[in-house]
């Protein structure tokens, strides 16, 4: 029974793990992967000698770090508010609409952003900014705006998903706590702080842990599709994933690209173990394993 699944795992996940040897080789297609010469850590040396390594690491961590904080805070806020909506129908409607962006592929999100920001015909440049008396901006050539744009787009797309998860946790809280608190005269704000948030803390921890474990991986679509792979923006939009992709597909620099990929996998792996260890020290139940 397990044969197809296991065979698949081996092919899709385990064979490539052996493929990491590519990072230590000087790939020569004529000799094949196994026949190519070993060069030790040369690929890594090249990678870390360039400015790229620093830039992509910084971008990856800063973006994902702020995404984790903003997403969590925002999603918890929206989930708490959603739980306050008394009308069943309205609550379901709001939830569906907020979840809508999550369903759309990043390609489409790229189109949506383009319709807002396009230099010749974007809504902002031709309709909104003139109303405010601001000169048009060529968004796709101005790196300084992109950290904000990407963060907003990411929030827009991701909030719905986290919100649903937190809402499920909030609904699971026993109503008696709130009734007792009300009798004791606790304000709404007080109840949220001392009942809701502590009781959904396990869910928050797990979601954050999962996110921290993947802090070295980025949503490739967000960083590739939304800035339209625009060259001038790369200093602020390039993350490890896009760098590896470009190394492989556009530049054909397999050695460097797989070194960057391995760097990402290994650091990601260590981060999962580390964050899980820290959480399990504090409370065993909240840890992943």
């Amino acid at each position, binding site marked *: *029974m*397990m044969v197809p*699944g*296991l065979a*698949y*795992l081996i*092919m*899709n*996940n385990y*064979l*490539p*793990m*052996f493929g*990491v040897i*590519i990072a230590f080789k000087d790939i020569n297609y004529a000799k094949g*992967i196994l026949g190519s010469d070993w060069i030790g850590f040369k690929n890594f040396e090249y990678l870390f000698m360039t400015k790229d390594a620093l830039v992509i690491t910084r971008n990856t961590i800063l973006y994902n770090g702020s995404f984790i904080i903003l997403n969590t805070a925002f999603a918890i806020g929206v989930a708490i*508010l959603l739980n*306050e*909506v*008394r009308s069943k129908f*309205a609550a379901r*409607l*709001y*939830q*569906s*609409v*907020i*979840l*809508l962006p999550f*369903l759309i*592929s*990043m*390609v*489409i999100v*790229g189109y*949506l952003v383009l*319709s*807002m920001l396009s230099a*010749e*015909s974007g809504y902002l440049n*031709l*309709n909104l900014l003139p109303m405010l008396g601001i000169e048009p901006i060529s968004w796709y050539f101005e790196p300084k705006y992109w950290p904000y744009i990407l963060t907003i787009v990411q929030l827009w797309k991701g909030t*719905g998903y986290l919100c*649903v*998860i937190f809402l*499920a946790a909030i609904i699971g809280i026993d109503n008696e706590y709130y009734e007792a608190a*009300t009798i004791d005269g606790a304000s709404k704000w007080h109840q949220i702080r001392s009942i809701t948030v502590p009781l959904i803390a396990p869910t928050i921890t797990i979601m954050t842990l999962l996110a921290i*474990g993947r802090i070295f991986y980025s949503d*490739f*679509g967000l960083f590739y*599709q939304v800035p*339209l*792979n625009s060259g001038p923006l790369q200093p602020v939009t390039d993350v490890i994933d896009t760098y*590896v992709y470009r190394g492989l597909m556009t530049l054909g620099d*397999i050695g460097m*690209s797989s070194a960057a*990929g391995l760097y*990402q*996998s290994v650091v990601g792996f260590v981060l*999962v173990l580390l964050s899980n260890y820290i959480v399990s020290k504090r409370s065993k139940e909240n840890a992943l394993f």
Partner: protein
Amino acid sequence: MKTNDMNQPVVHAIFIVLAALCVIPFLLLFMSSISSESSIVNNGYSFWPKQFSLEAYTYLWSQKLAMFNSYGVTILITVIGTFVGLLISALLAYPLSRQDLPIRGFLSFLVFFTLLFNGGLVPTYLIYTEVFHMKNTLMALIVPGLLTNGFFILLIRTFFANSIPVQIIESAYIDGASEFKIFYRMVLPLSLPILATIGLMLTINYWNDWFNGLVYITEPQLFSIQNLLNRMLSNIQFLQQNNLGGQNMAVNLPMNGVRMAMAVVGILPLILIYPFFQKYFVKGLTIGAVK
């Protein structure tokens, strides 16, 4: 009864704003797709174009072969991928859920480890292209997404282990049912909620996938709808280059409008069926959140 309600009008007002923020970009997209090209050129994309026109859609209709082709590719990979993915995930998850499986711990670890560590894009790419020769085949669009790194298997396994009583399986055993029969006749019918959830997630993943197409597919006949959209987004000239608009290069094509019309065509199926599966989808997300 909930006590101490927040001010309802304020809560509603906040959500109306949030909901509007989620919907407005789609509205802009749609309105732009039914604008005449000249009003886009003069006034940009807008919520209320000076001049309505269906020229973008008329143009897309004239390219219906390419459109239908990529729709066909998308539908085909979605159906096959969802079905095969669900089947092998369940087949793998079921034995893992049984306490009496030999080397169960080791096998579970094999699955779990794929969540923690992977070879990265480059080795995966080389395995798929150099060893299995999947470049420019439909397989390349289907195979990489099947189990999505063991995550679904763990979800299904947890469901099997928690919601299917061992007694049922044992009694079926005593009645002489084979393992496959037990799986097919007892386990699967009892697991419809989780199977529906995973199926839905797989469907959405396949429908929205553009990455595998970007990496493994270079032949336009094999483009899924997302890949077609992707090429058009990054390169509007793609239309002309690939014969989607080849015959009248000199004529001013409604390019900006066509772009947006294409996007509408790409989202439409999802938006149309969303209300029907919204309930299950939310349930699925919630199941996915529990470890």
